[in-house]
């Protein structure tokens, strides 16, 4: 449990490397976690079917913000097809922790936002991160 606040998470939360917005961008999507008010926006630039630039913005708990920073870092250079294949295990691997059902929602918000944007959906859904 103590590991939930592993230094890497606190570090990504306090000093994120990919916080910001991209203007112009090819893909932008935002959503929030209604339970706790976490909010994440992700902007992408796409070149030749691959993510060339990515940023996130938003506010919320350490888990939601650190996972967004780690996720954005991990998708730069990935093809959109590979992004579509990402799932909850990828996020847990990035964070390197186990999470209960409530905090899992915080951790998965950024992936949900990312995939909804990549799929071009009108509305993000939990089904994207099952």
């Amino acid at each position: 449990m103590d590991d939930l606040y592993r230094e890497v998470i606190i570090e990504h939360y306090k000093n994120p490397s990919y916080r910001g917005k991209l203007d112009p961008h090819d893909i932008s999507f935002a959503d929030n976690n209604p339970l706790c008010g976490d909010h994440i926006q992700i902007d992408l630039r796409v070149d030749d079917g691959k993510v060339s630039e990515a940023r996130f913005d938003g506010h919320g708990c350490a888990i939601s913000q650190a996972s967004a920073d780690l996720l954005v870092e991990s998708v730069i250079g990935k093809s959109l097809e590979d992004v579509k294949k990402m799932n909850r295990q990828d996020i847990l691997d990035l964070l390197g922790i186990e999470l209960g059902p409530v905090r899992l929602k915080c951790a998965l918000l950024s992936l949900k936002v990312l995939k909804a944007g990549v799929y071009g959906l009108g509305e993000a859904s939990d089904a994207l991160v099952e």
Partner: protein
Amino acid sequence: MSLDVSRIRQDFPILNREVRPGVKVVYLDSTATSQKPLSVIEAMNDFYRRSNANIHRGVHVLAEESTAMYEQAREKIAKFINAPSARQVIYTRNTTESINLVAYTWARANLKRGDLVILTEMEHHSNLVPWHMLAAERGIQLEFIPVTDDGLLDLGTYKSLLARTPKLVSFTHMSNVLGTINPAADIIRRAHDAGAVTVLDAAQSVPHLKVDVQQLDVDFMAFSAHKMLGPTGIGALYGKTALLEAMPPFLGGGDMIKEVKLRSFRPNELPYKFEAGTPAIAEAVGFGAAVDYLNSIGMETIAAHEHEITEYALERLEEIPGLKVFGPTADKKGGVASFTFDGVHPHDVAQILDQDGIAIRAGHHCAQPLHEKFGIPATSRASFYLYSTKDEVDKLIEGIYKVKKVFG
């Protein structure tokens, strides 16, 4: 009379629970739901072991017994809030359903396009959304009594809203976020003077204060068993007889009818008219046992104990640099302390406290508009009840210093 907390704590088995090896739970989340004393757990258990049968109509021993227990519990609840008659206490699932019952029956029969309903900015979603739904359907208008910076209702604005002759004033007796205890009798009297009907959300007041519906002269009042030592799945709606009798029924089905023809029905009398289908019988029995338990301690004694703990908690919390408690001073509030801390998200605060077994709640506590008013997405909330101790408050304070360490 002061309350013997260590004796009381022995009545609540869960308070001995270790949530991790060697770490006992410090339960500071009673505003969300209270813990249950053994007497409630056993009353429900005994009901299933000895008496269980469906109520009414049955003529066998078990059915007679179950019916009697279900109705005795109603009598106890009625007496607890000083209702003139048990017929005025309708069992529902919870506060939310009680308020919805009024919105679906009384309000749909009595409100039309343009009619004004007054709510407040400190309402729980359960006293907002039913009226939003009605506004969308019927075109009623909603206005809100503002909340001041120190967490009180702005009664001056209320006065000017009353000049617009509202049909209904529906408000919370005690805020589940700020802890504010609103001057209900005064608000109700002024509403009546303006010709409005009143609904009181008593989810947080009935568990913690002596509430007397006749003294308040309230028209409808909603509360939940699970916040007052009883089980989940049952609550109550109190209503004035004339209003309840004039209202159309709520859900249709068995028990709520006097007579059914192929193409028509006649509704049953009070309170059954509003209780369709097989109700939560064991839960009603547990609800009655919870009232017995609260009576055995005394509501004044409970309120005094909570006041002492709250005063102590506010004092200690306010010592912490970077911590801000929302709501009024201890003399105007119940046992609730909602706070923000140094830019650390409430979820992170709650999670770190959880490592030491300290259970608080983090989020908007089903009062999103109130949080918006204060310009924050969420708060951390510690809340107290008759089994809370100063020692638990001390653990909370130590835990918050730990949060500071983690987030450096």
